């Protein structure tokens, strides 16, 4: 493993490390990135099947974060857009990221208030 890969590996939980070792033994020809991709995908499958394939949620803050990041990138093409706009959008993106990191339960009121303005 490279230094970066070691750092990523050390961030894994005990259970995740066991999964990593299991997949590495099962596929000895896979490199670090391939094993991690497998773990990410298995995690997505477990979570999705576990949740029961939820309907799209128009108030999903993670989707709106992606949208805002896309908007911000798009606006960089337009020379007329001033710095204050980017400051305001960056502030919203930072707040949203912080709320998502803090956990979905906390997001409820704040994100509902923001997204209630649009739905």
């Amino acid at each position, binding site marked *: 493993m490279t230094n970066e890969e070691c750092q990523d590996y050390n961030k894994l939980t005990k259970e995740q490390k066991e999964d990593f070792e299991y997949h590495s033994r099962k596929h000895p020809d896979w490199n670090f990135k391939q094993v991690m991709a497998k773990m990410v995908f298995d995690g997505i499958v477990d979570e999705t099947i576990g949740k029961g394939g939820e309907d799209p949620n*128009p108030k999903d803050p993670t989707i*709106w974060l992606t949208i805002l990041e896309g908007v911000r990138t798009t606006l960089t093409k337009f020379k007329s857009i001033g710095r204050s*706009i980017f400051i305001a959008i960056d502030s919203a993106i930072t707040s949203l990221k912080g709320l998502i990191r803090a956990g979905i339960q906390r997001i409820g009121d704040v994100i509902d208030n923001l997204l209630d303005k649009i739905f």
Partner: protein
Amino acid sequence: MEQKFAIEKLLSAILGDKVSEGERNQVMEAINSEITEKPFRVAVIGQSGVGKSTTLNSVFGLKNYTSDIAEGTTDIEEKIFEMRNGFNLSIYDMPGIGYDVEKDAEYERMYAKILPDCDVIVYIINAHAKDIGEDCRILRDVVLPVCNTNQIKDNLILAFNKIDTIGESENPNDPELRWNVTENLPTEKLKKAIKVKLSDLTDKLIDEKLIGSVDAIEPHQVVFYSAIYNYNLSEFLRAITKAGKRGWIWTATVGFEQIGKWSDKKLS
């Protein structure tokens, strides 16, 4: 300025009184021009029978869309659908490459001509297929090279449809492996079968260096769903939102109102 789409309303709320009215109008004009200047272009690729029509019905809300593209054709027409307020959706319905390696060059030319203009490229595979080797070959040798050359790899979504039929293809006589139509969910036994099958499919994708390798796609670009039962469309919408530079436009405008539009659940 009238706000027609959810993203405009959200931006207005975010900008609030932090910017002048003139600056706010500039932003709205910029975003509106990005949304309406050209259609949101989606290429849908897949062999006959993988569910292209149903996917376009359920994910993009195209009522009664029928894929009438003939196998083997390389003459693809753009079909444009008016959404609302000047926003249009454009579909390139493309056949999957046949199993004739000698025709690869012809298809590569077709993909090279059309795909670079597309905001989202959806490659659909039947999730219950016994062998996806040929699809993997096509993705690895034809589709991904075109995407990488044109720096549009992030626009690609690998979509495994018909996960509802995974159980039946294992054992058509086992009722526990059939989709629970009443709850519109997989049975517990079918959930396990789906996990096993998807795990095998992922192993194959990794072995073929389609994910987890240089120039490969990321795990979030792989979605599994059932178009006919509108199952797991939320992840499909998430993948569209993350696609390339313009994927966000679909979800920020009509994405939520179009998805599953014609499902029984929404109509009742």
